[in-house]
């Protein structure tokens, strides 16, 4: 642990050290205004990653104002009280930064990777936009245009993007996971500067943020800079989250969608566990037995041997609240989605009835170990893991606890998770057909 310098006593407190693999621990500090600072010193290269994670995502929006959290991902690079439009990015680029941001259902984060001599710049810019963003009509109008174009590219003109949106709005009828993080187009069009100002005042505050710094930094210098730049920022009165839990799905759902594509697609989703749920790791390993790599059961059955599909994927959502176990399959030309579903059902039944073999389990565990290590090769990769787990579960050590939990899993654990989650009544199926095949009328949803 690096002690808090004496001149910062009363302003910065050491909170705890979080184990992070076999290397140095992650040190957690906190300012009086509630800002958390997580630091991992890594001198492998003369660089550092500076990330700011806000515990706000699209789940915190309300109907009619969807996409607001994502709009901030754009607005936060704009004008501040001290920086004219464009200056924020210009200063970063002049320093050689890689910078960007990402928004999802539970969080938003901003990052810059910089040469080691730029710590003062990072703290100056990030503290500036945390508290002094200019949110007036011209700034908001310009970014709305950009986001509408982003939506056209990622959703309206993209088959996978539009089907994903359809899936979540079909499964979730109460919870904020129902709407797309980028927002509905009509909501984006309607945002006002007042909407943005209210959102900013509510969620962009030091006590709703965690600064993560990984790299070749001097911790005492970092803490001094953070105290100087952020120390005077006021904490916000964070609202109690008005989350509406999603009730259990008791009947299967089925949707037919028509898209401008040449081949059919199958999307299947079961209600899944929250990231912090004990079964999350087990269901993720079930998914890997089915879909990870070219030796996996469904890749062989659908792509390699069955020659029915060109691609198949599965994913257990990594959300704070219970999410989905999503499966998507892209058919080969001339193959109907029903044929894909038949094979999928056969393999899903099999994994419920027959546990994976020891060899399958060992192969998946080895692949997961590789994946976990691969993501830690850069300072940005490490910072992202620390920020993600800290924001979602409160403890960056969970990145490695998760790996340890996977190592302990036995075949029976997987069968139990499969039986718990792969239930027909909680399933939603979407058949995607090429445009031109549809009967008259819009996409049709039925409770089958």
């Amino acid at each position, binding site marked *: 642990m690096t002690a808090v310098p004496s001149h910062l006593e009363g302003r910065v407190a050491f909170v705890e050290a979080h184990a992070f693999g076999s290397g140095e621990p992650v040190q957690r500090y906190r300012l009086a205004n509630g800002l958390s600072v997580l630091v991992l010193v890594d001198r492998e290269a003369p660089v550092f990653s500076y990330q700011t994670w806000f515990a706000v995502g699209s789940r915190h929006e309300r109907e009619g104002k969807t996409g607001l959290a994502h709009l901030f991902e754009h607005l936060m690079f704009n004008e501040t009280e001290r920086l004219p439009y464009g200056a924020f990015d210009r200063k970063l680029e002049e320093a*050689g930064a890689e910078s960007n941001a990402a928004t999802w259902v539970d969080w938003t984060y901003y990052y810059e990777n910089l040469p080691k001599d730029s710590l003062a710049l990072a703290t100056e810019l990030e503290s500036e936009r945390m508290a002094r963003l200019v949110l007036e009509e011209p700034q908001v109008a310009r970014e709305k245009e*950009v986001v509408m174009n982003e939506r*056209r*590219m990622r959703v309206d003109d993209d088959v996978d993007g539009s089907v994903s949106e359809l899936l979540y709005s079909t499964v979730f009828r109460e919870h904020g996971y129902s709407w797309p993080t980028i927002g509905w187009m009509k909501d984006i069009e309607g945002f006002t500067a007042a909407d943005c100002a209210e959102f900013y005042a509510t969620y962009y505050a030091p006590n709703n943020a965690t600064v993560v710094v990984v790299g070749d930094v001097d911790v005492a210098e970092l803490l001094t800079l953070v105290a100087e730049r952020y120390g005077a920022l006021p904490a916000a009165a964070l609202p109690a989250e008005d989350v509406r839990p999603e009730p259990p799905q008791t009947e299967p759902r089925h949707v037919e969608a028509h898209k401008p594509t*040449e*081949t059919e697609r199958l999307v299947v989703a079961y209600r899944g566990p929250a990231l912090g749920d004990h079964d999350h790791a087990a269901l993720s390993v079930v998914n890997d037995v089915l879909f990870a790599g*070219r030796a996996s059961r469904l890749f062989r059955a659908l792509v390699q041997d069955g020659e029915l599909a060109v691609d198949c994927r599965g994913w257990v959502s990594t959300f704070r609240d219970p999410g989905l176990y999503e499966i998507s399959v892209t058919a080969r030309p001339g193959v109907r989605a029903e044929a894909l579903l038949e094979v999928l059902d056969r393999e899903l039944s099999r994994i419920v009835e027959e546990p994976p073999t020891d060899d399958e389990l060992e192969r998946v565990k080895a692949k997961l170990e590789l994946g976990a*290590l691969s993501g*830690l090769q850069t300072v940005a990769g490490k910072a992202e893991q620390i920020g993600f787990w800290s924001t979602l579960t409160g403890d960056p050590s969970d990145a490695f606890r998760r790996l340890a939990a996977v190592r302990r899993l036995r075949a029976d654990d997987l069968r139990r998770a499969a039986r718990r989650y792969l239930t027909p009544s909680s399933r939603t199926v979407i058949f995607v057909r090429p445009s031109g095949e549809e009967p008259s009328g819009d996409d049709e949803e039925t409770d089958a």
Partner: protein
Amino acid sequence: MRVHVESSRAIPLVGFTVAFGVGGAHDPAGKEGLARTAMRMLRRGGGGLDGKGVEQAVDRLGAEIGADASMSTVTVSGEVLARNAAALCELVGGLLARPAFEPVELSKLVRESQAELVEARDNDRGLASRALRRALFLGHPYARRVAGGTASLASLERDDVAGWHAAHLAANNAWITVYGDVDEAGGRELAARLVAGLPAGAPTPDPVVDPARRPGRELVFVDKPERTQAQLSIGTLGTRGDDDDHHALIVANTAFGGTFTARLMAEVRGKRGWSYGASSRLSLDRHREAWSMWTAPGEADAPACLALQLELLERLVADGLTDEEVAFAKSYLARSHVFEIDTAEKRAHRELDAAVLGLPAGYHASYLSRIGEVDAGRANAALRARLSPEDLVVAVVGTRARQLAPITAAIPRLARSAVVPHDLE
């Protein structure tokens, strides 16, 4: 055999890439896709294992492997838990030296590749890029698709693949880089395992020449139904690594469209909000490649956006960049360079790329000093010498009925135009 080892003890992983000096540009006419297909076949059986056995063995080691082709090279790469590095290199060495090339597996791979060509039609940006290259490099191997086409893939037989393998996968045609948790001696030992079963052979001759500039402005409109926006890809010929003005053109491109605050992004997105992204790039290969810029405006803004981009290019070449713009681009390139070399994997692949692309000796070692020598005069001279606003291709993916006429009208001095279906190969 040329070997480079890049050691780092930071993470207990080892990676490698074996690159051979042959690629899609060297495929025989009518057999496009041969190099890529032959490489992909390596995973479908070899070294005494069938395809499933190969994949299971790789997974068991905690490894990933890849086999693919680009225009000028083919590669086999891998990443593995350090404790299993020797075993993976032994396995991959067996695949390289003793591939099965089972005809049944070849037929399955051809059908899979053909299905992938159909799926790729869902990627509008990819469609625009391919349309640009087809027209810009018309008659040159760079116009090809490394993946091949439906008919050329169907023509591939076992003898084609086996003959290609025998002709090109040789130790003296290979560059190997090993990186990660391994020392120099250990890395060289792993490299030796990878190519132990290959013949010595010789480097593959490269008959490809530089593409010629095609005069005039050409529009290729890729007609795709139900588009709400247009994908605009505009290109002309660009640079070679051994051009005297190569580094000056890198600086100039960075100032124009290589960063978030560069001219192109500032004008298209910053001032007008017309496109989520706006960027320009200089591609690099063994021979002169493309300079191109990309945007994706909404349907209503697409004609104006296209006209603006052409005007920006004309002004760039005619009036040049300011001293301030050039100084900024140099600062960005110099300071961000650390992110090109901050991991062993990046350092290793940088050296490998320099070798397989035939970049001048010392290319990377002198990179920063060469960038530092560029001033506005040199940058602007490079723009005038290399980028032609009058000899270019505009590739657009959109819906013809609504977008063709206004797009056509937005291109002054248009010499040629064509409308092609989005499923054109």
